[in-house]
């Protein structure tokens, strides 16, 4: 990053009057950075523009925002997992000082409809019960809200909520999805079943594939329920005044929230503004339109006061949507030489008590890549969704794809063991070769680009497998059980292409493009707007790098505005590793539009042809005559005083909506090395090496950060984290005392490397990376534990690999038991 330079550049036009004044102002400010700006910021490990406010405690999260006259909200939540609401007595609560009102479900009957579910798959029947911000007649899971207390004191409302007496008539409870499928109790009686839907993605002919196979391996794979657990819980502040609604929410999806608030409250959309302030992590759990958000907006209109709610950790654990929770029967067939002939997966997906925004879609996202990075001709996924008396599930980091990768990669190792092949050998045998791309796979999607051998080659340079095996053997003789596990993954991200995801394709009602707006100011400073909002990913930095290169300025003068529906164009928010591959590309295209106009203006002033103007070394200069050129500040200066070609529209800004032709498919090779204490069952990750390929790197620093966090999210699931309900539907893991997020002390530092195989889908050549680590890592850990324990007879084990689970597996095996 270079700054400085005197800004006054030779060859600048000397327009008179205001133009030169603006030019002078510019030369003292933004333009100073132009002259010395390197021409290529993309690819540099630039430290983040976001960080100064975050490392000095100056960032503004939802709880830092206050409005005068605010009423605080506290929700009264069900302690029962399934019950009829007999009566609600709020009289004592209302008598407490500072209590303004108590509302129950019936009060919200003027909402235009229940909370949204945005997936309508063509030709598939989905049982979709009404889900209201406050339960009306029955509660369906612990934490289901039944009433809200509003009052002037933040803590007074919590005390008052305790005074709201709710009489429940308990109903039978079911928390096991397999039991729920078998019959009563029915959670939503009107359907006469707990089944939500059935959905299949057949590819090829799996039965024919199994007929060709020499070995067939079947396993029951349990991918247990986890929590998103952002360190900042949810929170919302709603302010309705003079016919307009402003809502601040700790959300990943301000644009979706605006749309649905408008619909549910019957407010014209231009009168609803949603702002996502600094958001303290989401991991999918804030990709939602929550009842608390809708209630706050409704109550602000009702009371004429701002309404604020900040979630507690316990509420977050019980009521924010959760992830995973699938039980699958998997079946893989292979020939003696290791060629996989078929993979058939039958998933029972536990959706909890309600369908949230995208709940039933989540397992289907995994189905599209159920063949992994392998040329398996026959791949089929059959999904059954189930209601249980638990909090709803929806997208959590990876959303369906970690579950898919886990099934593929763990089963592949099981097959390799059956065939006496090494895990590396069976992977290489089945990789889609690099010259096959773009590769249409059995599931019908087209993988954009890949070079799977290259990432595995690099991984094996970093991990000396032969050396490891010798060490492993030696350690075993000392009673130390060390194992190595591999995961070579690909995934599907950059969630957009509307022609595939939209109403005519998969059936998501929200479409899937992204927007960008680039505005060059009088002085050459640049403000850009993106419809994708960051909450830790580094949007403000990576997007500034992309724009800066195209406009010949320093990223320092590119301000990225996001997360406010009142500023930029319509957007489609942040999820599915889409921000860069869709939102970043939208900004690249939009910047090019602005640059094209700037070139025409420069050409006009320098008496050259627009096609001879290039952006180089911080200037729009004439090809072959680098001295002859104008900085963006100089271009802006002449543009805003209208010293531009006759007939040209004034202004220097553009808007772009970008809808890609395809998804992008990052990939990579991970290896995990663990030590398992056979006496206690405790697993420790001693080494983790990952080689990922997310196409061209925009900012390697940010990529590594995403990979680190992603890996730990999956290590957390594999070893420590589990949302556990008992058979009465009581949440056992309601706090961070019981729900074990990994800490620094459990983990090693990671060894990362990268290869770069560009995607042809976008001009950046970049793929998403926000979920890749999470999608890759859980099978690497699981395969490593199995590898460690093979001498003790353990051949298979399901997550979470807690000391108890591992110890039990060892005990079972010693008794000659079968795989769990």
């Amino acid at each position: 990053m270079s700054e400085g330079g005197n800004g006054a550049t030779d060859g600048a036009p000397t327009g008179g009057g205001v133009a030169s004044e603006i030019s002078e102002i510019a030369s003292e400010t933004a333009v100073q950075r132009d002259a010395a700006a390197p021409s290529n910021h993309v690819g540099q490990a630039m430290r983040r523009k976001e960080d100064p406010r975050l490392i000095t405690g100056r960032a503004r999260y939802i709880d830092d925002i206050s409005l005068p006259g605010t009423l605080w909200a506290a929700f009264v939540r069900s302690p029962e997992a399934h019950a009829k609401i007999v009566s609600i007595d709020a009289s004592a609560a209302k008598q407490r000082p500072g209590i303004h009102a108590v509302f129950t479900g019936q009060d919200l009957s003027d909402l235009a409809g229940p909370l949204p579910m945005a997936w309508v798959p063509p030709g598939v029947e989905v049982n979709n019960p009404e889900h209201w911000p406050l339960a009306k007649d029955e509660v369906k899971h612990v934490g289901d809200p039944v009433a809200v207390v509003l009052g002037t004191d933040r803590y007074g409302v919590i005390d008052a909520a305790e005074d709201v007496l709710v009489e429940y008539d308990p109903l039978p409870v079911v928390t096991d999805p397999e039991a729920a499928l078998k019959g009563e109790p029915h959670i939503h009686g009107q359907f006469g079943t707990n089944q939500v839907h059935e959905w299949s993605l057949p590819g090829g002919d799996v039965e024919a594939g199994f007929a060709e196979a020499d070995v067939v391996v079947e396993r029951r794979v349990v991918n247990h329920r986890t929590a998103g657990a952002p360190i900042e819980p949810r929170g919302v502040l709603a302010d309705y005044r003079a016919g307009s609604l402003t809502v601040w929410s700790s959300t990943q999806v301000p644009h979706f929230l605006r749309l649905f608030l408008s619909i549910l409250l019957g407010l014209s959309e231009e009168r609803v503004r949603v702002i996502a302030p600094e958001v303290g992590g989401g991991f999918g759990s804030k990709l939602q339109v929550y009842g608390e958000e809708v209630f706050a907006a409704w109550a602000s209109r009702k009371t004429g006061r701002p309404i604020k709610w900040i979630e507690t950790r316990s509420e977050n654990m019980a009521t924010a949507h959760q992830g995973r929770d699938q039980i699958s029967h998997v079946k893989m067939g292979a020939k003696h030489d290791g060629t996989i002939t078929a993979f058939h997966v039958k998933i029972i997906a536990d959706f909890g008590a309600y369908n949230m925004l995208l709940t039933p879609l989540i397992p289907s996202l995994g189905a599209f890549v159920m063949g992994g990075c392998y040329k398996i001709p026959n791949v089929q996924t059959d999904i059954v969704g189930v209601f249980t008396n638990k909090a709803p599930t929806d997208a959590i980091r990876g959303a369906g794809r970690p579950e898919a990768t886990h099934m593929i990669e763990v089963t592949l190792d099981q097959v390799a063991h059956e065939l006496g092949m090494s895990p590396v050998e069976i992977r290489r045998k089945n990789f889609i070769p690099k010259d096959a791309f773009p590769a249409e796979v059995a599931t019908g999607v087209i993988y954009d680009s890949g070079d799977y051998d290259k990432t595995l080659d690099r991984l094996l340079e970093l991990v000396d497998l032969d050396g490891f095996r010798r060490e492993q053997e030696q350690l075993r003789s000392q009673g130390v059980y060390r194992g190595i596990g591999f995961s070579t993954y690909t995934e599907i991200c950059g969630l957009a292409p509307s022609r595939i995801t939209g109403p005519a394709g998969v059936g998501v009602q929200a479409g899937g493009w992204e927007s960008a707006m680039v505005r060059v100011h009088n002085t050459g400073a640049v403000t850009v707007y993106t419809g994708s909002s960051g909450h830790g990913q580094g949007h403000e930095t990576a997007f500034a790098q992309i724009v800066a290169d195209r406009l010949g300025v320093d990223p320092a003068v590119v301000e990225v505005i996001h997360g406010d529906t009142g500023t930029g164009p319509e957007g489609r928010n942040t999820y599915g590793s889409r921000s860069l591959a869709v939102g970043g590309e939208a900004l690249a295209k939009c910047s090019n539009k602005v640059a094209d106009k700037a070139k025409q203006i420069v050409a006009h002033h320098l008496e050259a042809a627009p096609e001879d103007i290039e952006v180089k070394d911080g200037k729009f200069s004439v090809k072959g005559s680098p001295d002859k050129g104008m900085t963006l500040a100089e271009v802006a200066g002449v543009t805003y005083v209208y010293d531009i070609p006759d007939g040209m529209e004034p202004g220097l800004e553009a808007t772009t909506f970008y809808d890609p032709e395809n998804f992008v498919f990052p990939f990579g090779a991970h290896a995990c090395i663990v030590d398992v204490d056979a006496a206690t069952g405790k697993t420790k990750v001693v080494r983790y090496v990952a080689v990922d390929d997310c196409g061209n790197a925009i900012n390697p620093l940010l990529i590594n950060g995403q990979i680190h966090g992603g890996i730990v999210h999956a290590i957390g699931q594999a070893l420590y984290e589990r949302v556990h309900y008992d058979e009465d539907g009581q949440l056992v893991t309601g706090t961070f005392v019981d729900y074990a997020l990994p800490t620094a002390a459990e983990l090693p530092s990671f060894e990362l490397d990268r290869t770069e195989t560009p995607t042809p889908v976008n001009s950046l050549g970049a793929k998403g990376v926000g979920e890749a680590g999470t999608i890759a890592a859980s099978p690497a850990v699981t395969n490593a534990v199995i590898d460690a324990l093979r001498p003790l007879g353990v051949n298979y084990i399901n997550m979470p690999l807690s000391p108890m689970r591992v110890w039990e597996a060892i005990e079972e095996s010693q008794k000659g038991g079968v795989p769990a």
Partner: protein
Amino acid sequence: MGSEEQLHPLQEAFWNDHGLQCGYCTPGMIMAAAAFLADNINPTEQEVRHALEGNLCRCTGYHNIVKAVMDAAKSKSATIEQQPEVTA
């Protein structure tokens, strides 16, 4: 702690090393690390990891936080070493 104009070495190290993403845990991490480094100017990686055990982060996987604390410790101890020795 430092200001935006004059950052504390830990703040600088968290920035340089990408030791934060959403930033929500960052003030706690930086203060915990500062208290720890006040007692241990030349820690091992394992000591840093144990010192931060009470602070949760969901974004970074701790890798870059640990790196930042180690780097800050190095720059801090370098500064201390450069100072003339005070004799009684």
